[in-house]
């Protein structure tokens, strides 16, 4: 963490780039890399003879923006649609609706051939690096493969490029001839990152990239991701259920619940004063070193509802401690509250209350 990042703890209200806004509805700024609007992904719902399959609304309404070299943390619990959102952005999943504009192009209209080219610029890394690697290829071959596939750079220079990439992710040269099963989980994740970097992407969608790693290894991988961002201006969509890791890495955070973004804003203010009851509950649930033992904390009751049958009105009202009659009747929109976006009828009350 550099000194330049320190002052922000003093002036949380001032740090929002006011001219720019954080909403997706704002004018597109020159440094905007990715704009996602009203993205939807439904599964099932086909008509069969005499009956209709249930529709799972995995992603119901997701709008977000990402700037060059920025990290947006996308958090939520299992089944909230955060991974599906990431998979649509890299083209592994076809949206049921909405737009994904990347560097001015709408990715949802790309032909498969265009996607092939586009893929270079948007890479993805996953939770389990071992399963993302080919067990029969050496480490050097894994990293070289995308260069060969996309025919990037002169053939003769590719071994050198592989060595350079390995160095960039701090993999010892000795590992070049090893196979995936001969290296550790942390090293495997570095190989995956090196392979993603080979395409010189401007965006990497990271889906729980450190969740399977031990904390000491986790820290080295997150440090590496930050370092690469500083040097290469890579933007990250960092998908995670771990709000502690997300805080360390993200400039902004979007919180998802049952397929919708319920709150989005700058990381520090959002953690300090969440304006959506679900964000509050999520933050209160994290076991953290900064929280004293036995400190009473608000807990959510019950399990999240099924995305096949989401509650009426506000999806969160069945578990919300502040729910009013209005909440089950009227769907809240994601709307601007100061420099935050919140999907709650009573967001202003929470702001003034605390």
């Amino acid at each position, binding site marked *: 963490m550099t000194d330049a*990042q320190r002052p922000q703890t003093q002036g949380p209200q001032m740090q929002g780039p006011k001219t720019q806004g954080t909403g997706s509805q704002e004018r597109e700024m020159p440094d905007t890399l990715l704009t996602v609007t009203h993205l939807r992904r439904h599964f099932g719902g086909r008509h069969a003879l005499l009956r209709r399959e249930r529709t799972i609304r995995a992603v119901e309404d997701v709008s977000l923006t990402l700037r060059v070299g920025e990290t947006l943390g996308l958090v939520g619990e299992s089944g909230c649609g955060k991974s599906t959102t990431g998979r649509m952005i890299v083209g592994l999943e076809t949206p049921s609706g909405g737009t994904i504009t990347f560097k001015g192009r709408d990715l949802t209209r790309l032909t498969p051939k265009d996607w092939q080219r586009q893929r270079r610029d948007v890479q993805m890394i996953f939770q389990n690096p071992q399963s993302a690697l080919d067990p029969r290829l050496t480490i050097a071959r894994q990293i070289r493969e995308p260069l060969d596939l996309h025919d990037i750079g002169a053939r003769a220079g590719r071994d050198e490029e592989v060595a350079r990439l390995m160095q960039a992710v701090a993999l010892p040269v000795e590992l070049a001839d090893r196979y995936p099963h001969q290296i550790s989980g942390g090293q495997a994740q570095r190989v995956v990152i090196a392979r993603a970097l080979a395409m010189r992407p401007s965006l990497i969608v990271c889906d729980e990239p450190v969740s399977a790693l031990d904390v000491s290894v986790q820290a080295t991988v997150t440090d590496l991701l930050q370092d690469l961002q500083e040097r290469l201006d890579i933007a990250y969509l960092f998908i995670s259920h771990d709000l502690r890791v997300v805080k360390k890495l993200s400039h902004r955070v979007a919180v998802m619940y049952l397929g919708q973004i319920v709150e989005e804003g700058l990381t520090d203010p959002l*953690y300090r004063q969440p304006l959506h009851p679900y964000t509050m509950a999520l933050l209160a649930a*994290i076991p953290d070193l900064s929280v004293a*033992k*036995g400190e009473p904390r608000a807990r*959510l009751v019950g399990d999240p509802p099924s995305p096949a049958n989401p509650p009426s009105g506000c999806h969160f009202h069945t578990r919300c401690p502040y729910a009013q009659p209005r909440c089950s009747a009227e769907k809240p929109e994601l709307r601007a509250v100061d420099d935050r976006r919140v999907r709650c009828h009573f967001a202003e009350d929470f702001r003034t209350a605390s």
Partner: protein
Amino acid sequence: MTGMTIAEPGEGKNTLLAVEDLTVGFRTARGYADVLHAVSFRVEQGRTTCVVGESGSGKSVTCQAILGLVPRNGRRTGGRILFAGMDLAAADEATLERIRGRGIGMVFQDPLGSLNPLHTVGAQLRETLRLHTDLSELQRQKRALDLLAMVGIPEPEQRLASYVHQFSGGMAQRIMIAMALACEPQLLIADEPTTALDVTIQAQILDLLNRLKAELGMAILFITHDLGVVAEMADTVVVMRHGRVVETGPAARVLSAPEAPYTQTLLAAMPRLDVAAPVYRQRSAR
């Protein structure tokens, strides 16, 4: 029965479990290797001891050894495991079986893998009670109902007739806890019981364990890799690395002023909520 009652001169009055110089080795294709090296720690009555470590630290093998459940290619080669005055390391299988049911309850990470998919939850609870208690059939039915209510299962009467797959992960873990507590054990061993759960559900389960500990006066031996969970649960912490205890002491002290270099490294690597997030620096598009 070979479990002997041993009067321990240095033993504190409130010590429920004392692991002393526990050494366990495994036979592998590449020869014999010790995975636990003289591991020692204590669990006090009614208190929570957290064993924390990264993968390969030996924390799970330690709890397997306490329960006499070390895999077949493993062997305890030294040390004692004193539970309520009895050396479990020297006890025969019949004694261990009795203790595992009645004296020590167990909860694991994967509740679905630990419960029988073919029997209703009620049948499994009644079976446990039939094996380990003298309760009549009617009393067992009543006790099974009480247990589900105690762990916070809504509509327990109806849920007794449900199968495990009909429960969510959090609810299945509650049932696992109900099974473990069926015979009112003095010690509950919980091996990463919340690792597979979402955070809001994890918080519910941790609260439940803390409430049950207070209500039933039992001790908890809690295995975890998450120092945040340690902060929320532990009275005493045992930090393990590579099969050795590197540091042990009161949780408040270990977490605020760790002595072992490894504990310091682990704490420093732990992401936490009170660290400032990075600030975006404007860049131009490439």
